[in-house]
């Protein structure tokens, strides 16, 4: 782990499978506080990775760092997507490369209707699913298309946030607690959708408190604790490891 | 007495607007002050010291003290002006404060000087109140006032526009505007004019169209603009835009009068000033020896002719210095005595009297008109008439100046 791979030429951390998204020795700060503490992991093309951990473990911060948001600030380390140096970019550039984040607090834009929120995602290329197709996935949104986005119910907002990510042509989908606030039937729906997406070759990183559900869906899992990685391996392994589950996931 | 000079020098405080709309006038005042100090200290060509009727000044400072000065910014606000004057007195040891470009400020600073026990030689201030109800024993004014403007203008107005006129006044809504309106109204009504309306306009107004529009159909055939500075420039420009100058009312040409003119400010009105009557304290085109000497001295140093503002403050500085020289002391009471009832000549306004009763100068007043064919950028006004001092003199207890008392001179600590 201590030899830095040459990302730009396609050589990767895990020599076995070519990594698609690589995080290398990433450190992030909120102002003075050191949050993401030198983490490295790989995500392979087309796989679903579950990123798990307690409250405050740094999951959100990791996703935000990858999506190149202004905070937390990545002060050290590298992030590579498909041989492109993400760490040199800002969020809109990352987005045009195909990174999409469904933020944990949904971030529906006030003042815009449901439809405008979706249209907004389709101004800058590359464009993904059509709005009509998204309405088919979430009929609830189609019904409420003229309503101001922020007045939607909590679950509806969550749907909108996911739909908005799919409205762009994405390579990597970063989901921060996508099931939160959704009725169990809808969670089932979304899980199905994620599987469809996976079949299309899209790579997914999912952060979820409902660890069992996430692990059943995921191929691999990374567990974070106080800003560092404590586990990196297959999802099945976590489900089978009593100790890990008890210590970090309380399941 | 306060700030008695020690150590061979004496300090004046030049308190003028350096920021805000009157900054250019303030700057011209400062130029004249510096020139005066230069002349008092015996440098330069001596300017009006050579033509001044009193010969006590010798070009070696005052009473052997070298003249120094400090400057300050009044911002044309009473508060700021007083703060600035106070610092000159408390910190810099100024023995005399002079300057100002607004009556409000002048009255406020004059009050301060009275309390602090220094002399105030007022600069630009035209309100009757300065030497009327707000007069102070420690304060002196060389500049003319609203009453004098009215008295000087009246005969000319009657001659040029006749005695059967209907006037409409627009007046800046503050002390100076009111006294000017009152004075002009009185003088013109004495001619037989009728005052149709007198409307106060907010000082902060910039677009006067809604005040000008009602003039159109009011039946008035003269518009009197009791405005100064930016107000005047804008109201005059607006009046011309509304075609008032081309208008014929009651069979007569519509006329506009701006009772108090300043060449510096008039430039802002450009073409619109042409043919408009007003009055001024002094103008550089005067051909008496004093004026010529001053224009030469100032023009050589700065490259353009001085304004009336520059002239009046130059005179005030010289008059103060001369009074100190004659009194043989800087004690405000001694200087007051020397100035009271002092008669002089050679400072550009002809024979002049510093009246003892109210510390106001009485001298000829110029009636001027915007020039039709200027030959240079400074050649904006032409002198129509020099109204002799007797015609503009009033009794000290004239009702427009009543109230308030001169009080006693205060030499301070």
């Amino acid at each position, binding site marked *: 782990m201590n030899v830095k791979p040459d990302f730009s030429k396609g050589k990767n951390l895990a020599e076995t499978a070519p990594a698609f998204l690589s995080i290398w020795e990433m450190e992030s700060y*909120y102002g003075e*506080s050191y949050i993401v503490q030198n983490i490295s992991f790989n995500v392979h093309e087309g796989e679903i990775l579950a990123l798990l951990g*307690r*409250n*405050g*473990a740094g999951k*959100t911060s990791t996703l935000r760092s990858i999506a190149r948001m202004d905070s937390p600030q990545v002060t050290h380390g590298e992030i590579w997507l498909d041989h492109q140096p993400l760490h040199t970019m800002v969020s809109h550039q990352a987005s045009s490369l195909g990174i999409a984040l469904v933020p*944990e*607090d949904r971030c529906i834009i006030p003042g815009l209707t449901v439809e405008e929120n979706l249209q907004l995602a389709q101004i800058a290329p590359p464009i993904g699913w059509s709005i009509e197709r998204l309405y088919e996935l979430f009929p*609830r949104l189609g019904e*409420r298309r003229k*309503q101001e986005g922020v*007045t*939607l*119910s*909590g*679950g*509806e907002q*969550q*749907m909108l946030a996911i739909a908005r990510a799919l409205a762009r042509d994405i390579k990597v989908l970063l989901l921060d*607690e996508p099931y*939160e*606030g*959704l*009725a*169990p*039937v*809808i*969670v*089932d729906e979304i899980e199905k959708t994620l599987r469809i997406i996976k079949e299309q070759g899209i790579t997914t990183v999912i952060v979820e*408190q409902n*660890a069992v559900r996430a692990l059943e869906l995921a191929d691999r899992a990374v567990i974070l604790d106080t800003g560092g990685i404590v586990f990196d391996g297959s999802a099945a392994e976590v489900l089978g490891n009593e100790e890990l589950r008890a210590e970090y*996931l*309380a*399941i | 007495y306060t700030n008695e000079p020690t150590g061979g020098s004496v300090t004046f405080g030049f308190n003028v607007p350096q920021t805000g709309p009157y900054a250019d006038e303030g700057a011209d005042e400062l130029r004249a002050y510096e020139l005066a100090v230069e002349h008092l200290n015996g440098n330069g060509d001596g300017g009006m010291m050579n033509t001044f009727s009193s010969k006590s000044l010798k070009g070696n400072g005052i009473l052997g003290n070298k003249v120094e000065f400090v400057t300050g910014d009044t911002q044309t606000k009473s508060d700021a002006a007083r703060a600035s004057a106070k610092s000159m007195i408390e910190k810099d040891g100024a023995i005399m404060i002079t300057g100002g470009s607004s009556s409000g400020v002048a009255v406020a600073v004059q009050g301060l000087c009275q309390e602090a026990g220094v002399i105030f030689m007022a600069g630009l201030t035209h309100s009757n109140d300065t030497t009327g109800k707000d007069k102070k024993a420690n304060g002196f004014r060389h500049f003319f006032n609203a009453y004098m403007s009215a008295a000087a203008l009246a005969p000319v107005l009657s001659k040029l526009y006749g005695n059967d006129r209907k006037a409409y006044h627009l007046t800046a809504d503050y002390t100076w505007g009111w006294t000017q309106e009152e004075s002009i109204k009185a003088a013109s009504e004495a001619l037989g004019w009728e005052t149709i309306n007198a409307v106060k306009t907010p000082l902060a107004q910039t677009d006067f169209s809604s005040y000008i529009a009602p003039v159109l159909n009011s039946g008035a055939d003269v518009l009197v603009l009791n405005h100064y500075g930016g107000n005047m420039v804008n109201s005059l420009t607006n009046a011309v835009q509304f075609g008032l100058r081309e208008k014929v009312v009651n069979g007569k040409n519509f006329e506009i009068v701006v009772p108090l003119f300043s060449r510096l400010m008039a430039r802002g009105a450009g073409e619109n000033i042409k043919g408009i009557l007003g009055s001024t304290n002094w103008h550089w085109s005067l051909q008496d020896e004093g004026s010529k000497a001053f224009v030469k001295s100032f023009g050589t140093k700065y490259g353009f002719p001085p304004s009336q503002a520059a002239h009046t403050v130059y005179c005030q500085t010289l008059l103060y210095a001369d009074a100190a020289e004659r009194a043989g002391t800087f004690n405000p009471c001694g200087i007051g005595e020397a100035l009271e009832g002092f008669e002089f000549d050679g400072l550009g306004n002809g024979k002049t009297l510093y009246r003892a009763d109210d510390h106001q100068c009485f001298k000829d007043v110029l009636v001027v008109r915007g020039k039709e064919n200027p030959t240079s950028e400074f050649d904006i006004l032409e002198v129509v008439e020099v109204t002799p001092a007797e015609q503009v003199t009033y009794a000290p207890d004239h009702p427009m100046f009543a109230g308030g008392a001169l009080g006693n001179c205060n030499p301070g600590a």
Partner: protein
Amino acid sequence: MGILEVKNVNKRFGGLQALGDVNLSVAENSVHAIIGPNGAGKSTLLNCLVGKLIPDTGSVMFDGQSVLGRTPYEINQMGISRVFQTPEIFGDLTVMENMMIPCFAKRDGAFRLHAIAPTDDEKEIVEKAERMLEDMNMAGKRHMPAASMSRGDKRRLEIGMCLAQEPRLLLLDEPTAGMARADTNNTIDLLKQIKDERDITIAIIEHDMHVVFSLAERITVLAQGTPLVEDTPDNIKGHPKVREAYLGETA
């Protein structure tokens, strides 16, 4: 006669009937859960109870008094506290200060021109706030600005703040959403304990069936603005309509 009696409440948003003739009775000192699909009107109903929204028709009685027409703070002073779906806390203040405010509100009422003694001198308030922080397992974060906590922590803080007010009726809108499993369990225990110790009534909205079934004594299922069924947890679990419209296969 329950402590909270909702009768024939209707609320429209433009063309949408968000609540249609809702009747609900919550028995004193019980835990009553409200579940239902996203957009069913659960949060809207809660908003009508705390004065954030005014129902178009109907009545809401708390302990025999009408809450309609009262401002939120008056209703709160009657003894109703509410936890929001997205955490509402005092982000600029420290965790400790956050906790002190409800303690003051409990003691002093809606407004009091305090003697200007330092806050630290108010021993009873400080002690109470500390105790609450310990109960909520947050004592270590006392000096942290609340805004810089992770979201799970924010939510726990908000619950703590509501409890500190010793309300008679506690309204919880998805209190454990985004909370780590361990903390969810803690919260369940805490709520149970508080309910027994302090003679409190709880109305809870949740999509996490684990929480609902561990806590609730009665459940109302809301769908499209109207109550579908109201029953005990066991009966709800087996209710075919509820399974179809809401629970899906998983539960």
